[in-house]
């Protein structure tokens, strides 16, 4: 779909300009329009959008439905939070350790004293974990629904592990960062929060660029090929395992970065980031926005989360109905998501004005859902 777009330098320039304009709007204009509370919400949702990009990469492009992105999200969050927790006078331990009678810092906390290490670890550790898990699973050609429930089970295991280890990482309570300092600035303060808001916008732009680069060209086409017919890719002499592992690792890294940015803005990281529900919701953001389109992933994350926070405020008792209905609606009525819907609407308007869409050899094939299902399920 999006990969079939022409790659002329002119359209590239337009796209860059557009992205930068939106980023500028988000970073500098929006803060003037919204109340502090809403702005912070938007900041967090933008962080979630980064994770959504990662999911789009593996689900929208490569056809791997991971229900375990929460693992990587939480790992990134924990990495950053641990560094913040260690911003203490020499020899002191984070407060919660004293509650459980822990006298020495657990070994795996030690490297998080270093800021550069932390910066690298928030994406490298999730990346390694994702790569390792991915490799073990893909190597055996486990895929489809099987892969999904395996990732979900992994999620539960990581949840149990983090939840049970009070003495290592404060268990259920999680780590709170609002009152910690980084370079002498309190994390909960307005200055720090503004900084992280802008940083989130920048990182989102960077992540978008990365995904755009990955999904274009040969690599991107290969991912789509794996999604549409993995066996054929293998018969053509490629090894899908390594590509799948790589792209899964990248999505893990994106989720890790998202987790770190989300943590500092919400002020807490806890094992609940690894609840089953959150990881499934992440997938639904992408589905709502439109999978297989990067803009869709971002849009979906923002729209769904805004709707969610508004609905749960207005109807705290019954808003689960809305959420459930959203899942059903998206899957049954709107399989191409908002972006797919907008695109069709745009095409229609253009056609009304006499500008037909660019000619493709078999346009009906591109729009025919059943044809696409057949493509996806060939060989099952």
């Amino acid at each position: 779909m999006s990969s079939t777009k022409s790659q002329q330098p002119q359209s590239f320039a337009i796209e860059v300009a557009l992205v930068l304009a939106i980023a500028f709007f988000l970073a500098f204009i929006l803060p003037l329009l919204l109340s502090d509370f809403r702005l912070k919400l938007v900041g967090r949702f933008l962080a979630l959008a980064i994770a959504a990009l990662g999911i789009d990469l593996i689900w929208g492009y490569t056809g791997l439905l991971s229900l375990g992105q929460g693992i990587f999200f939480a790992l990134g969050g924990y990495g950053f939070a641990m560094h913040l927790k260690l911003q203490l006078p020499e020899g002191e331990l984070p407060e919660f350790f004293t509650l459980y009678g822990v006298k020495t810092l657990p070994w795996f906390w030690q490297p998080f004293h270093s800021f550069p290490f932390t910066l690298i670890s928030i994406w490298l550790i999730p990346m390694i974990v994702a790569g390792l898990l991915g490799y073990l699973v893909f190597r055996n050609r486990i895929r489809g629904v099987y892969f999904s429930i395996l990732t979900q089970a992994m999620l539960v295991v990581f949840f149990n592990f983090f939840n049970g280890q009070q003495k290592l990482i404060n268990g259920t309570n999680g780590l709170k960062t609002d009152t910690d300092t980084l370079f002498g600035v309190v994390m909960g303060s307005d200055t720090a929060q503004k900084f992280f808001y802008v940083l989130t916008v920048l990182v989102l732009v960077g992540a978008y660029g990365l995904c755009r680069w990955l999904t274009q060209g040969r690599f991107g086409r290969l991912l789509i090929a794996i999604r549409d017919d993995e066996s054929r890719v293998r018969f053509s002499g490629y090894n899908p395992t390594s590509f799948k592992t790589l792209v899964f690792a990248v999505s893990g890294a994106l989720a890790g970065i998202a987790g770190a940015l989300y943590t500092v803005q919400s002020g807490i990281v806890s094992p609940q980031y690894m609840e089953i529900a959150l990881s499934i919701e992440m997938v639904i953001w992408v589905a709502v926005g439109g999978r297989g389109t990067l803009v869709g992933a971002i849009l979906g994350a923002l729209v769904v989360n805004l709707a969610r926070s508004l609905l749960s405020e207005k109807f705290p008792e019954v808003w689960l109905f809305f959420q459930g209905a959203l899942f059903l609606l998206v899957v049954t009525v709107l399989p191409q998501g908002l972006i797919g819907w907008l695109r069709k609407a745009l095409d229609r308007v253009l056609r009304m004005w006499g500008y037909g869409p660019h000619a493709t050899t078999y346009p009906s094939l591109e729009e025919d859902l059943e044809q696409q299902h057949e493509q996806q399920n060939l060989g099952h």
Partner: protein
Amino acid sequence: MSLLISSLFNGVGIGAVLLMSALGLAIVFGLMGVINLAHGEMMMLGAYTTYIVQNGAKALGEPWTDIYIFPALFLSFAIAAGIGLILERSIIQKLYGRPLETLLATWGVSLILRQFVRSVSWGFVAGLVIFNLLFFGGRAIGLQRFRKARSRLPSWSNTLLFALSAAIGITAGLLFLNQGEQSFWGKLWFSARNVDVTPPAWLRGGLEVGDVTFPYARLFIIALMVVCVVGTYWFLQGSRWGLRIRAVTQNRDMSSCLGIPTATVDALTFALGSGLAGVAGCAVTLLGSVGPNLGSNYIVDAFMVVVVGGVGKLVGTIFAAMVIGIISYLIGSGTFAFLLSNMVSSKSLGIVWLMDVLNFFATSSMAKVMVFALIIGFLQLQPGGLFPQKGRAVDA
């Protein structure tokens, strides 16, 4: 010896619960390639049915309070199967061939069902009934009219009808609910809190043999599991529809060509799987709590059983459930660590390290971590599960 027997029994007891909850899931997954995330909620419906039957039995008095569990089992099956049938006909069927989307859709269903038991009341039901009458009644009338007039129903009519009847239904429901929480219409049936299901007296307590106690509830569940497994086997192997189900499981396209109504087979299987979940839900009321979140407590373990058991073979599922049950008991109760310390007298570094690891995992929370690690390891050796299907398919 008594340690061996009690370990085995306890492990099988855990395995029986796992198998009960995974059986329906495995059948549906084997046939349709669909994972039903609302499976746990089907269990929950079964459990709530048991609660209602129990309250009915309490009202009826003596003999019923002792035997209500049997009608409850039957009704749990019927209600869960019915809801499953509706679910399949209305949603899953439309998503045929898109297993990942089905996964998400069933998650949506599970959220709605969970919220449903929280907020259901007579007023709510009344609103729902009004909506259904208007929507489906209107559609039926519309279809009839248009068939007479030999023209097609305009495409927007359904949507309009839906919107109108939803608006009327919700309004009516709210009007009923506005009579207050104490009124007949407004009073919640279950509310968000847990409800108590007390098994009949003969299912409480345990059978003591020597120094080992066999809880009656576990014995009952093991017996029930055997009945379910045998029944399912009989149905699949011995009946006409079972034959068709097996045929579709093996090769859907070929079966379809040979005139097997695959859509009916799908619906039937889904109803059967949901019904089994309902029975499982009724069974777990003997052991655990009954609340809106009942399903989520069991569902992930059920997935693991299905994954280890492999696709399309019931015997794999049975084996997987028992093995996982026994292993998680041995690790979680610290029996492994205990046995090891007794058997090995030498205190070499490796043994000490192994003991430390086992003790670290010897709590219920950590046992799950360990079991899962073992499962991942197992899948490296046997990617297709315990009893992989033999064949020459491209995809393992």
